[in-house]
């Protein structure tokens, strides 16, 4: 059987599995009123915070079928017991936990992690750059909304990563703004042990997921390519063609000096590879598989 056939069967089978999964029923009970010391119940909260309650009611957190707020103490699961807050006549931050901007980010995230620590991938939250730089869950996720609570990607990411927002709109860029690649296609925002929180052991293994033609191993390798794609490419966007860090031939000459053409300055009167681009004769720059010795110089 050809390898591809395995995939052809896997996809419809997974569709079947998905549908069967959804078709299965079962719910757990929820709570609308407080029955613990200091807890007042969601309907009491609603008396003053109707807009927040209504948005909460549309959210996934309101589902009784998950082990979430509604199946525990509703509003007070995240905001804490509300009796003292009510006794004091309410007020922002008065004996109640809020997710205000000035709140300690770790304290806010800790509330979410009470339930979400067991979510796949969240085990590395503490290790992640986001957590260590005071990004909390509510920095990216809107909690009082209906439907999906996934952040808008890349808009939310661009809110902090201004340089990436600019790079992603440069003349040469990955199709991030076009919606064909998301930040989360390559990065694990909830934490990772890898630099840049990339979703692979190292950058080049990540690139190979879409650019497997560069994976090789080639007979004639180009060592900087094998060590890090970013030696030559700026993955988010560049003013130079092909996401390159520098114009060709300058990029190539930063590593290659030799007799005759590699070491020649290509000014605006040049007639050789400055006009043609080094890749005109060295196209197999990511590695050549030729039995010819020309493979060493990536011309075959």
């Amino acid at each position, binding site marked *: 059987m050809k390898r591809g056939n395995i995939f052809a069967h896997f996809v419809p089978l997974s569709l079947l599995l*998905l549908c069967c999964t959804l078709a299965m029923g079962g719910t757990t009970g929820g709570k609308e009123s407080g029955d613990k010391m200091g807890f007042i119940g969601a309907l009491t909260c609603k008396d003053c915070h109707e807009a927040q309650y209504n948005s909460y009611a549309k959210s996934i957190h309101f589902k009784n079928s998950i082990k979430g707020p509604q199946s525990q103490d509703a509003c007070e699961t995240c905001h804490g017991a509300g009796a003292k807050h009510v006794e004091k006549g309410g007020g922002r931050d008065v004996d109640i936990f809020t997710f205000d901007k000035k709140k300690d980010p770790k304290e806010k995230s800790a509330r979410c992690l009470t339930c979400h620590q067991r979510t796949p991938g969240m085990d590395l939250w503490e290790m992640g750059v986001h957590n260590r730089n005071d990004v909390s869950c509510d920095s990216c996720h809107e909690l009082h909304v209906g439907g999906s609570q996934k952040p808008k990607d890349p808009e939310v990411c661009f809110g902090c990563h201004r340089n990436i927002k600019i790079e992603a709109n*440069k003349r040469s860029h990955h199709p991030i703004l076009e919606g064909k690649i998301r930040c989360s296609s390559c990065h694990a925002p909830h934490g990772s042990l890898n630099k840049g929180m990339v979703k692979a052991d190292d950058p080049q293994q990540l690139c190979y997921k879409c650019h497997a033609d560069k994976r090789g191993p080639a007979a004639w*390798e180009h060592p900087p390519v*094998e060590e890090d794609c970013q030696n030559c490419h700026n993955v988010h966007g560049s003013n130079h063609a092909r996401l390159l860090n520098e114009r060709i031939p*300058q990029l190539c000459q930063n590593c290659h000096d030799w007799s005759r053409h590699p070491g020649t300055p290509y000014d605006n009167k040049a007639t050789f590879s400055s006009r043609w681009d080094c890749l005109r004769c060295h196209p197999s720059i990511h590695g050549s598989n*030729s039995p010819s010795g020309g493979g060493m110089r990536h011309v075959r």
Partner: protein
Amino acid sequence: MKRMMYLPLAVLMTTPAFASDEVHGDLSIGLRATHFASGDESAKYNEYLDMSDGLFGDVNVFFDKENYYMGFSAKNPGLDDQSYELWGQRFGFAKGRLYFDELTQQLSLDALTPATGIGGNYLVTPDAGTPASVPPISSWTPFDYNVERKVFGTEFTVDPQEKPFYFKASMEQQRHDGVMPWGTTNFAGFELPMPVDYTTNNLMVESGYRSKETTAVLTAGYSVFENDYDLLTISNGTDIEQYSTPADNYSYNFGGRLVQRLPMKSVLALNAGYTRNISEADWGQYTQFISPSADNDYDGDVEYIRGGAALTSHWSALLDTRLFYNYVDRNNASEEITALDNGNTNHLFEYDRHKAGLDANYRFNKANKIAGGYEFSYTNRNREDSDTTKDNLIFAQLKNTAIEWMSTSLRLEYLNRSSDTDYSAATLEGDGLIHQYFTPFDNASKDRYKAKVAVDFNLSQGLDLGLSYALVNDQYDATQLGLQDDQRHEIYADFNALLPAKIRLNTHAGYEYTNSNFDARRFNPGGANPAGATNANNYNWSEETTYDFFVIGGSLTVPVRHQLDMVFSVDHQWVDGNIDFARSAAAGAALTPIADADDYYKTQLGAKGIFKATESLSITLGYLFERSNLDEWKYVNYTYTPGSYYLSGAGLDKDYEAHQVYVITKYHF
């Protein structure tokens, strides 16, 4: 056809579940027309999206129930950038999605070639070495460089909320199909369309165990790449030239991690992984170059072994630390070959890298935080020009939020990189003497200084201003010939305001300046020594490269009437690149600068009116203007026939001015 049987079965199973569900979503149908001024059409205009005239639109449908939800979306059905996604989740048990995504990356339109066989891997060309045999350009065949990508995949996660185990799996097939520019040499001195016909299948599975204190995860992946055209043959009717293209390959990996929660809110993570990449280049198809391999193919075989550990500790409410160590070892067990045509021997590149670091966050008080850290990495390669590299990196970061409406951060970073070479005496013989003086930049010894300051103002609800400045300065003091220094300044600003009358303003601006200096030696065989004679063929020279990049943009939303919003948008960016050269007068006339090095500008203007006819129906009428111009020296006085080489016009369709009008009807249900 067998697999189609699953579909009706799935629908049958699902129908009862949807019978009484709330359904909501939206449907958009649009119509657009684009006019290109002066007939200038460019691949850049629709590089990733299908912007063709006619209908477009999308539909999003959601089924939302107490214990599950399901969604379906379709974007631009029938167009070259169409995508479809079906997803669902049974709360507290499982979720999954199925998707298809297509894009056609337009590389260059209206290219020309005298070759026949475009799209295949056997091209017939005239003899570039005999100009009389090359027909006039007017008779060359026009074609477009583009690569169509189709991705079809699925992923699902089974994560029962009452169970400690979860399981994830994903599978994806990517198809790439098209032609891209490819340079060839010798008699076939043509820029030609190389066929792209790739299939990549990726499979990933992950299984995990969670308890309150421990998480253990095992992962495995398999990826296979197949190229239907793994050889490019060029014929001039008499002779042939053969060029390798990406070879079939596959890769598999295993990994695992253990995350253990310890006292003091500490978390310890251990991870290990193994990846093996294997390629199979079929040399049986080659008629040129007698294969040095007995079994007539080339076997590439590289493995990566990885390990790591990280420990985060919260010593108090004020202090937390992170200690980490990573290790990667690339072993290359590929076939060693010596080419029979010129005796070149391939180099099996290997390296191993150790990286360790410690960083700490200390909170002076609620409003002030300082962070600092140190990282060390050591890389050992079997590269003569870069044998070992040691990086010492220190950083400090301050963050202040004392003022309720303002936060400030400052980060300083210093990297010291020292690299050793390991040239053999044989390497330094002859022209190889240049290695004694020239250092490749990628692992050269250097000092890097980085600074970044950011100030964010949250002036009031809906009024934000963000400013940031960053400096990166690399100094390659130990380099005699090669990159000498590299500087980069970045300034960015964002301003977002919700003004009276619900007017919304979002703006951004940026400026980047890069400057680098480079020294090299131009020499003929035997003249590698930079202290040697200076004449027309042997001389030292230098180059200074400077780029200025500006961008400004934003959008303004104005509610004109209760039912009508007007949205205006603008984005303008431009680059000014300059390359200056210098050499001794003894080498000849002064080198002339390149004043248009990747210079470009792009302007986008948009205006649209959104009329909300009813609560659920809106009509948008809009206009988009986009103009882009690339002034790159390579394209100045462009000729298809520079010297004895023949170009195809790849990238020549760089400029365009487009005017688009569109109307979109959107219905929410």
